[in-house]
């Protein structure tokens, strides 16, 4: 190693300590590697926590009661654990949210990517980022104290807590997610496709709806699925505005209790660790986790499976 190096003749300034450098490199690499593994540890931590407490829960409450009971009253003396009550409420708020976020988000993405000129775009994107950065508790305030009283003027049967305004504002809160992910997908459609469509006489709208959007469909669908997953897991808007009343059914005008709202309700009380109510939030959390995980994997799969490759 040393034979070719000018170590003897060179000045004292050039004194590389190769051994030290190597050792430092090894130490740094293993520390950073350990840091990277923390994400894996977190995942295992989540899964183990949920499995452990959920297992304990199902020791006391049989799984079939969890799936078939028609009421959710874990804090009553004759407790019932029908998870469908919470799932139906979650699906209701999520459904309303998607009805809002899907068309608005997609159209906004099309505007940003296809119509907006660079100057307007420069202002619109940060504005949408602000919308994305608004904490959900603020949206909850807005849904409960502004939107509900406003809607009550038009909808007489609307109660103070309801799934409707929670779902509407939940939808608004996920518009930026749909818009920015869809825009990425639309933006990455190569220009040659658009030019081709124009060349055979299509108008701009026809180009967008029958060439650009289909070409970007895998990315758009993936963004929708992620938006559904986000809406299912959202907590503060639904627990503030949708209420805390577990009822089975899909009436948007009355208070309902979503899965996340139930976890909040129990967390706010003084539930001793180890009690059945304490374990029930982990069982609900497990259900929530599995639903969002399935959606996230589905979204990942859609992008992989249906991606159109160009070039």
């Amino acid at each position, binding site marked *: 190693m040393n034979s070719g190096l000018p170590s003897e003749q060179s000045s004292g300034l050039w004194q590389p300590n190769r051994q030290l450098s190597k050792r430092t490199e090894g130490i740094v690499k293993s520390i950073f590697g350990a840091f990277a593994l923390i994400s894996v540890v977190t995942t295992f931590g989540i899964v183990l926590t949920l499995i452990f407490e959920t297992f304990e829960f199902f020791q006391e409450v049989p799984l079939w009661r969890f799936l078939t009971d028609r009421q959710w009253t874990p804090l009553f003396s004759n407790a019932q654990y029908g998870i469908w009550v919470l799932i139906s409420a979650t699906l209701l708020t999520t459904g309303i949210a998607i009805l809002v976020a899907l068309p*608005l988000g997609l159209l906004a993405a099309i505007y940003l990517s296809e119509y907006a000129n660079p100057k307007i775009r420069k202002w*619109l994107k940060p504005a949408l980022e602000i919308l994305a950065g608004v904490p959900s*508790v603020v949206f909850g*305030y807005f849904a409960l104290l502004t939107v509900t009283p406003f809607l009550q003027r038009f909808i007489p049967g609307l109660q103070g807590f309801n799934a409707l305004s929670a779902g509407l504002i939940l939808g608004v809160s996920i518009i930026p997610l749909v818009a920015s992910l869809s825009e990425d997908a639309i933006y990455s459609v190569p220009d040659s496709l658009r030019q081709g469509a124009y060349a055979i*006489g299509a108008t701009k709208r026809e180009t967008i709806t029958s060439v650009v959007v289909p070409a970007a469909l895998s990315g758009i669908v993936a963004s929708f699925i992620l938006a559904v997953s986000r809406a299912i897991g959202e907590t503060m808007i639904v627990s503030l505005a949708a209420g805390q009343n577990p009822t089975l059914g899909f009436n948007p005008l009355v208070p309902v209790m979503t899965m*996340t709202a139930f976890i909040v309700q129990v967390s*706010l009380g003084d539930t001793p660790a180890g009690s059945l109510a304490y374990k029930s939030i982990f069982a609900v959390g497990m259900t929530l986790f599995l639903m969002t995980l399935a959606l996230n994997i589905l979204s990942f799969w859609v992008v992989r499976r249906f991606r159109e490759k160009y070039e």
Partner: protein
Amino acid sequence: MTVQNPQISGDFSPAQESQFRPAMAQRYRWDRVFRLATLIAIIISLLVLAILLIDVLTDGLPRLNWQFLTSFPSRRAEEAGLLSALVGSIYLLFIVALFSFPIGIGAGIFLEEFVSDGWLANFIEINISNLAGVPSIIYGLLGLAAFVRLMEPITGGRSLLSGGLTLALLVLPVIIVSTREALRTVPDSLRLAGFALGATRWQVVRDQILPLAFPGILTGTILALSRAIGETAALITIGALTFISFLPESWKDPFTALPIQIYNWVSRPQRPFHINAAAGIIVLMVLLLLMNSVAIYLRNRFQRKF
């Protein structure tokens, strides 16, 4: 049929016309409708944001004064303030930064600079993207089981430290991803030049790559912190919603934070508390906008093209 220019449709012979009806006027009308629809979509989204901000400002601004900022929560809305929540949020911010910055940046450097695309990198990668999709309330359940219950002797139960650690885990995927993106913008030629001079990977990263990527990393981490500061669900789950009328002295003390105090006020039936909530929201949003503008400033100030 040969390609025709639809603009000169008037020149068609009747026979051709029966097969080829460009109907341009109608199609252009639909074009305008569609364009308008996309514009309306984005205006509606931003209009909601504007109404939200105006609504909060008109409700909360009159309440926002020095007394509000320097008082503890109270059962009487007029005397209540958000001192403990403000201080709690700032402490939380420090704890989250203390844990999530080195871990997130280190993990990002490891994944981007030290491992090649093997199964390990793939595995961690899938893991991180999955974690990014986990609802925050699930992190709250993890924090409750791991930090509040299991590690109670260290964290002191429902303490600042438990809250900070839970939030740190929550924002970790964001920091890792933005670190990697920032590192990716530094061109490979700089790395190769470093290696050519005989530097080790770590020396190249420390002395060449990291200084160049740092503004980008900082931008991402500030945005991650601003997500942590608005987070409510995870903190409620670990049991942070309590009546705190003192300032925490150590990180084993119980605490409250801005979004939690706001949640508390919103969920009360009396109107004066709702006004307090609006004032609290103004403080929270000002804090968030401040952090975001620092991030944007950094991005613009240090952005460079290679």
